[in-house]
């Protein structure tokens, strides 16, 4: 029991934060692994009589060991709950900040797009979320969107083709529309070469 006594003395003479270093040291030195003193003996001695209520308090011997674990569990649960609350608040702040930035970006992109539309295109876009564009080869309709949002309009007024082409970067949708518009106006051949084509959506 000599080693056992040493450990308990070491623990009892320190504050809570020092218990575990003292225990670890004793364990490492082999004081609690000698024959006749299994680890369980340490715990058997520790549990019945040692406790501490707070980091700042000296260890006392007036509580049951079980209370130590109840207190510890309670504090751990409180710690975990607080951690989760802090993480949730951080995520919410980041989400809100990201949304503000996205909204600002959308507004800037919309303003730039509108700046480059004719009055007719602007009116149609504001009213119906699309505008039309006549190129050397035909009439296109550009819907607000990201992919598959460009249609070629045939002589019958129906969509003859749909085109899927968009920026590699995650720019706002209005920037996508402006990029598609400039490509169609100033380099239509390259637009048709890059875009994936599918049948237009015809209205019965």
């Amino acid at each position, binding site marked *: 029991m000599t080693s056992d006594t040493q450990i308990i003395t070491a623990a009892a003479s320190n504050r809570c934060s020092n218990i575990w270093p003292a225990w670890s040291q004793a364990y490492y030195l082999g004081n609690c692994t000698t024959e006749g003193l299994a680890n369980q003996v340490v715990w058997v001695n520790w549990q019945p009589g040692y406790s501490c209520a707070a980091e700042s308090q000296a260890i006392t011997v007036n509580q049951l060991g079980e209370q130590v674990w109840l207190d510890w569990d309670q504090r751990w649960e409180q710690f975990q709950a607080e951690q989760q609350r802090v993480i949730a608040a951080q995520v919410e702040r980041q989400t809100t900040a990201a949304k503000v*930035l996205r909204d*600002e*970006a*959308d*507004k*800037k*992109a919309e*303003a*730039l797009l509108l*700046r*480059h*539309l*004719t009055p007719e295109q602007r009116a149609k876009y504001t009213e119906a979320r699309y505008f039309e564009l006549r190129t050397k080869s035909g009439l296109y309709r550009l819907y607000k969107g*990201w*992919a*598959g949002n460009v249609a070629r309009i045939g002589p019958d007024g129906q969509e003859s083709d749909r085109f*899927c*082409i*968009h*920026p*590699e*970067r*995650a*720019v*706002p949708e*209005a*920037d996508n529309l*402006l*990029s*598609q518009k*400039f*490509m169609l*106006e*100033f*380099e239509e051949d390259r*637009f048709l070469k*890059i*875009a*994936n084509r599918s049948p237009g959506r015809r209205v019965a």
Partner: protein
Amino acid sequence: MSSVIDSMTAISEEPLGPTQSVMAKLDESGDTKTIWDRNNPIEVEAARASFKRFKDEGYTAYSVKGERGERGEVITSFDPTAERIIFAPRMKGG
């Protein structure tokens, strides 16, 4: 040179002065504008450096003219007299 570029970068909308031109690079923030005075050689050179950097990033440069940008063309080298240059990001088929 970068400080000159930074000082030229503006997030405000036009109007521009009579000797000013603007480059707008479409990006995740909507767009980033670079304004230069065509009569200021330092600003012109800074704009030229920006042009090269944007091209190196894979952007396509459209020099647009007119009130609504109704006339324009793809340009591959910097034109200091350009009225307005829009840099569109690289496109891919969806």
